[in-house]
């Protein structure tokens, strides 16, 4: 169940996701849509921490990578069923986030950014150097995803699997934010001192947002690994962490649909710009800068405000 005001947004998402395949002419477009969906799952989670609770993390690609490698290693090396590997990976990532988050989340602002950045870098170095387990820089092949003997193959099937996971993730995120927990997270962003005095245990709620966002990143990482059938340390690195935070900020902080739109746009945009060849990155950067200058609150909140003003 959902709160009434959230049902409309969720229904719109379901409609878009259901109709989208009609506009996907070939496997390449399906591939972009799937990657956008996977990024969106990470960003909806990351937005709980960055957008709502106001705590930065520059290390979430580390959690994404740990989920991916947990799935790859548990299924490939130990022959675990993929679903069990995904679940175990999620639990491991959550536990690690809980252990790291406790000391790290006592830091604020730039210091928190530095600490999470360091955490992400450590994860990517460990994955790149422990080559006996992880395959090192060469990466690892990942077996196809199977549930109860039925295997997930082909872009179309994956599209529906990612779409369903995304819808469930968005529904849970909306529910969380429409609860006293969501209010507590936002109040920490507004004034941590006042939140504490009102009985909000800020350390506990920051940790909660950190762990939930890490688990979602881990699950998305597992799915990405099985989908592409191959993983390399590239997706675990610092640059991917920055990409994820950029998606959240670009789409609109403290907006679940903003994070979703940010992930979709910034995944699709570089693909759309490939025809510009050597100017691709230039235009991409200019679009990012322009959006942040003219829509500092991000795409979705700024457009929503514009629409409300237009109606009034």
């Amino acid at each position: 169940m959902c709160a009434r005001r959230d049902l409309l947004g969720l229904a719109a998402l379901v409609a878009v996701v259901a109709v989208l395949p009609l506009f996907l002419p070939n496997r390449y477009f399906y591939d972009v849509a799937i990657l956008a969906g996977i990024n969106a799952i990470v960003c909806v989670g990351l937005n709980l921490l960055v957008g709502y609770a106001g705590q930065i993390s520059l290390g979430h690609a580390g959690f994404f990578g740990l989920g991916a490698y947990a799935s790859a290693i548990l299924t490939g090396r130990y022959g675990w069923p993929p679903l069990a590997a995904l679940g175990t990976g999620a639990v491991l990532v959550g536990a690690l986030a809980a252990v790291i988050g406790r000391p790290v989340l006592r830091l604020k602002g730039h210091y928190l950014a530095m600490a999470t950045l360091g955490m992400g870098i450590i994860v990517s170095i460990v994955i790149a150097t422990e080559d006996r387990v992880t395959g090192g820089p060469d990466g690892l092949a990942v077996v196809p995803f199977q549930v109860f003997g039925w295997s997930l193959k082909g872009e179309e099937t994956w599209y529906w699997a990612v779409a369903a996971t995304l819808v469930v993730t968005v529904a849970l995120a909306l529910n969380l934010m429409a609860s006293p927990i969501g209010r507590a997270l936002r109040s920490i962003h507004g004034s941590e001192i006042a939140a504490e005095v009102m009985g909000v245990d800020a350390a506990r709620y920051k940790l909660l947002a950190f762990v939930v966002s890490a688990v979602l990143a881990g699950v998305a990482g597992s799915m990405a690994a099985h989908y592409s059938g191959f993983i390399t340390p590239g997706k675990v690195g610092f640059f991917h962490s920055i990409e994820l935070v950029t998606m959240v900020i670009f789409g609109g902080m403290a907006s679940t649909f903003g994070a979703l739109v940010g992930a979709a746009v910034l995944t699709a945009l570089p693909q759309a710009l490939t025809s510009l060849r050597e100017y691709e990155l230039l235009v991409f950067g200019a679009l990012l800068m322009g959006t942040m200058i003219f829509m500092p609150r991000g795409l979705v909140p700024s457009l929503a405000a514009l629409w409300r003003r237009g109606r009034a």
Partner: protein
Amino acid sequence: MTLLSVRELSRSFFGLDAVQDVSFEIPAGAVHSIIGPNGAGKTTLFNVVTGLYRPTRGQVHLAGEDITGAEPSALARRGLSRTFQNLQIFFNMPALENVMVGAHVHSDCRLASALFRLRGMGRRERAAADEARRLMEQVGLGAYVGAEASAMPYGALKRLEIARALASRPRLLLLDEPAAGLNPAEAVEIENLIRQIARSGVTVLLVEHNMRLVMAVSERVLVLDRGRLLADGTADEVRANPAVVRAYLGTRNAGKKMAVHA
């Protein structure tokens, strides 16, 4: 019954004593005020009592329980709430939700209830919103029920903090300069509001520079000067206390100024 008991409390910053050996007791009921010149240690005392600072020495007891050094979030659960001299509003949220955060300690904060909207979450949330609306009306903010906090004027935000503090259903409410920056008409409204809160059974501890307000609402006045408790009595007793007059007007000129005023 003694609601708040402060015993030989000291708090120093870098060797400088902001609060020094302060002891007093606040019985349940009525309005009690703490006054004193700027820098007397009033806000430091508030911050120690509400757990934002740890005391260097001494103890704080709330309704007989030792709460010295307890986390602020734990104190809300025990019926202590406050407002801030420098506003601490959740500017990223609507006014109504600011007040609803105040009810945090009475909410269902289990993760499963939130994620799956179990155990009547929707109904509870609507009830919480109704209660917040009622509190906003009670403090005279009926016109701002649908407003964003960031769009409200200063005087209204002062009341919003009071409504938010009341939402936690406190036994003891600490108000840190609720009338600061308000015009005389607004100050009178705050005075009436403080009376009304006290009548509803909440014990109020007030720090305020507006002497007219303090003398009008307080059953008892404590005077702090340079971190020490200088006087403790009814408004009239304190007003007539020569040490208090000296603290406010300065030692050397006290006699002269009193003479001029007389």
